[in-house]
């Protein structure tokens, strides 16, 4: 830090210069995965950022505002990060924010039970000269395990404020807020931890060659990153000094000669050594028990058992689906009765503009309320219980081997399960997977998982008007397609598959308040998308119908719909609207035929083919946007076109086969 004084670019002086006058402070929450960053975020901002007991929950930064004693704090919740060196996508988001956006305060959240490993990242933040505040979270759990952290001592050694918290109970949050405000006003300068002599010598040699205004970061951090051969920093340093790179190379070689391993590994080793020593100084242990028979140990003996573990898994996941269907169907019926008492749904209306608009909007509203909400709410409620408890990570472990066959690993089951709710968050959560190939593969499979919208179509079209067995068969067919498509894509896609390394969190007893809050926030965000798209969509259909615009579209699509799939020509428009949201197919169908009793207008074969194609033919618009954001348009379009071709091919075959015996 000290080497940068006087340079305008350096974050160190910037903080000092601006903090006195600033009204709004930017506060970043950073730390390892699953230490409770989102829980602290929720406590600070009073919002309901989703939290869950598995590493990698937060894949995008979330923002919230805290107004406190006349200060306005913009709080940013970052994805979990273990080190500034590894570069998985979500870690890159965190690194880039901390390094480039210069937040006023970085709150480093640490898991009290795994202090050494957490301190490894703290030391990197200190090197970067961040104005740090430490929150030692989950302090209660640590104490139960007999680990006591001396926060005062830690604060003294590191030179930054340290607060003990239990975020889910709100303990220590007031103290943390005070510490953040104090730190924003006068940024604390973290003490630097010295490494071994050989390393320090070379760091100072590189520092001496760096011009004062070089990368915009503290000279020591820059020097260490150059030594570690970090590509980004190397490029920056190369621009401002020609001598430094060869010297750094020489230094790295010397270190290799001394220690017999790469400079990056040596520095990590040094940092861990420092973290270990620091940990030893501030921790004391109550119970000397080596392998305590904790609740987690006892549950894991069952959950990870080679036989009972799989039984439990089947029970929980099966339970999730069965619960969703039964509760969903019941709630849906109740709501339908309730709403039909208010005003009848008359999808097909011609007449005055206001009639069209009102009927379209009302139909859309009823469809959203009776079709989506009943299925989504129970699913998310059950899911958040599984997540909060920590069971989801055990599912990953148990299914790791099976997913290898699809070129994936255990972590991929998390997006796949989320996919039963909504594909959009499921696609985003694929970021927890490290290799680009596996990430795309997982996202591809997520788009074929029957999300709640598709479940509604299967239930509303097939279960209701053919029979429930055909609905189950469609589900099974979908799983088979996922496996076959997965194996095919695994072979075809370039790139490597890497194995899983995942932290296993302790089990928590899920809190009902949290589960309800989480379900509400997920449902809410869905409603924001669903209600408008339903209402606008259904107005559009009614309007297009009365304007006579539908026939040309149907005619253009009839080679596919009529010839290949054996459906009536009017279904062309159904598929077009299904791109917006999959459930729109039902809505459109009802509007076009003027009835919700589909069996009067379509044969059983047509109903099954319609549901099958709807299930597969394209990710909905929101999913396409989410995919494009993470994988680029080229891959997204390829995937979209591939799925259309696949759906039409499978639908055409199904139509011909089913016609033989139905």
């Amino acid at each position, binding site marked *: 830090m000290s080497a940068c004084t006087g340079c305008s670019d350096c974050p160190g002086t910037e903080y000092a210069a601006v903090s006195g006058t600033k009204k709004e402070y930017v506060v970043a929450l950073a730390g390892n995965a699953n230490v409770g960053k989102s829980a602290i975020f929720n406590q600070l901002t009073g919002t309901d950022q989703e939290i869950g007991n598995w590493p990698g929950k937060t894949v995008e930064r979330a923002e919230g505002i805290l107004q406190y004693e006349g200060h306005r704090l913009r709080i940013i919740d970052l994805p979990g990060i273990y080190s500034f060196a590894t570069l998985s996508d979500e870690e890159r988001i965190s690194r880039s924010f901390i390094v480039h956006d210069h937040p006023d305060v970085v709150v480093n959240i640490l898991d009290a039970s795994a202090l050494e490993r957490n301190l490894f990242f703290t030391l990197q933040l200190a090197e970067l000269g961040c104005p740090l505040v430490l929150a030692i979270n989950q302090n209660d759990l640590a104490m139960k395990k007999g680990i006591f952290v001396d926060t005062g001592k830690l604060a003294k050694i590191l030179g930054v404020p340290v607060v003990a918290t239990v975020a889910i109970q709100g303990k220590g949050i007031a103290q943390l807020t005070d510490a953040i405000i104090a730190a924003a006003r006068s940024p604390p300068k973290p003490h630097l931890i010295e490494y071994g002599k050989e390393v320090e010598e070379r760091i100072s040699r590189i520092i001496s060659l760096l011009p004062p205004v070089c990368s915009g970061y503290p000279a020591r951090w820059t020097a260490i990153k150059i030594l570690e051969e970090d590509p980004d920093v190397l490029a920056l340093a190369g621009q401002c000094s020609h001598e430094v790179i060869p010297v750094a190379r020489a230094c790295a070689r010397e270190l290799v000669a001394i220690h017999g391993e*790469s400079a990056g590994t040596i520095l990590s080793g040094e940092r861990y050594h420092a973290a270990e020593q620091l940990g030893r100084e501030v921790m004391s242990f109550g119970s000397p028990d080596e392998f305590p028979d904790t609740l987690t140990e006892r549950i894991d003996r069952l959950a990870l058992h080679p036989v009972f573990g799989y039984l439990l898994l089947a029970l929980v996941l099966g339970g999730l689906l069965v619960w969703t269907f039964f509760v969903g169907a019941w709630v849906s019926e109740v709501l339908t009765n309730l709403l039909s008492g208010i005003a009848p749904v008359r999808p097909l209306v011609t007449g005055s503009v206001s009639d069209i608009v009102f009927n379209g909007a009302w139909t859309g509203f009823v469809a959203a309320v009776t079709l989506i909400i009943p299925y989504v709410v129970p699913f998310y409620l059950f899911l958040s219980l599984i997540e909060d408890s920590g069971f989801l990570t055990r599912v990953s472990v148990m299914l790791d081997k099976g997913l290898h066959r699809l070129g994936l690993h255990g972590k991929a089951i998390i997006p796949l399960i989320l996919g039963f709710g909504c594909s959009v968050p499921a696609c985003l959560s694929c970021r927890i997977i490290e290799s680009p190939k596996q990430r795309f593969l997982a996202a591809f499979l997520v788009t074929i998982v029957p999300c709640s919208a598709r479940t509604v179509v299967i239930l509303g079209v097939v279960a209701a008007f053919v029979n429930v067995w055909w609905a189950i068969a469609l589900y099974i067919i979908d799983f088979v397609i996922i496996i076959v498509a997965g194996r095919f894509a695994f072979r075809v896609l370039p790139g490597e598959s890497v194995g899983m390394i995942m932290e296993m969190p302790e089990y928590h007893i899920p809190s009902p308040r949290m589960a309800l809050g989480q379900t509400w926030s997920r449902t809410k965000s869905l409603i924001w998308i669903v209600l408008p798209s339903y209402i606008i969509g259904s107005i559009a259909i009614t309007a297009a119908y009365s304007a006579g615009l539908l026939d040309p579209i149907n005619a253009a699509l009839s080679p596919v719909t009529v010839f290949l799939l054996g459906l009536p020509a009017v279904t062309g428009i159904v598929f077009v609207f299904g791109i917006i949201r999959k459930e729109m197919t039902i809505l459109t169908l009802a509007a076009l035929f003027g009835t919700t009793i589909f069996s009067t207008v379509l044969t059983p074969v047509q109903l099954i083919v319609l549901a099958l194609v709807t299930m597969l033919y394209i990710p909905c618009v929101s999913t396409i946007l989410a995919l494009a954001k993470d994988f680029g348009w080229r891959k997204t379009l390829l995937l979209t076109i591939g799925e259309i071709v696949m759906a039409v091919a499978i639908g055409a075959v199904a139509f011909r086969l089913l016609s033989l015996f139905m």
Partner: protein
Amino acid sequence: MASEQTEEYLETIFDIEGKEGTAKTSAIARCMNVAPASVTEALQSLSDKGYVNYEPYRGATLTPKGNEMARKVKRRHRLLEVFLKDVLKIRGENVHDEACRMEHVISDETEQALCKMLRAPSRCPHGSPIEPCNRMVQDCTECLAGRSGESPGSRDTALLPVTQLTPCRKGTIAFIRGDRKIVQRLTDLGLTVGTEVSLLRKSPGEGPVEILVRRTKLAIDHAIADNIFIAPCRESHE
């Protein structure tokens, strides 16, 4: 006895010992397709050289010296198999016999070069694990990057992959096999050379293993865990 024959005998005894505890004369004879009488003679000679403990009618076990020799040859054999299959594309059924002949003649230098060229493989084409080399290094990064200057000396203790630790026994990480990427990934989660780890649980069918490191539990893919090598703590064997 020629050195080639010695090595073949040691390898056979090593294999049988691994399965049955003691290598009986008859079992060795069956395996090597020779007469039991010649086996008895050979075992006597190996015993004289200090490679095996031989008790007539009970069979033979390898001495530490014999064990080291056998493992060294095994490593060469499996590396050569990978080379023959993956690089030279030799047909599957010939790979083993070919490697059997070549394993006795290659030097340490060639062995190291092979390992480097094949990017430190962890298994032979038949799925048997390849032991790490006995060079005193902490990981493969320098060797693979071609920066392995002078010889770092050699290790005298046998290393064990973390997957083969007995559950709830401790050990210290001594060596990580793999390139910079994997070493970095493990390092970030606290798995560095010199760290104490213990195996908590293995899952069936070579599924992920659960280990305890720095007070955190990690589930690690079996194939990755196979490349984390442990020097087992002696004192924990009470």
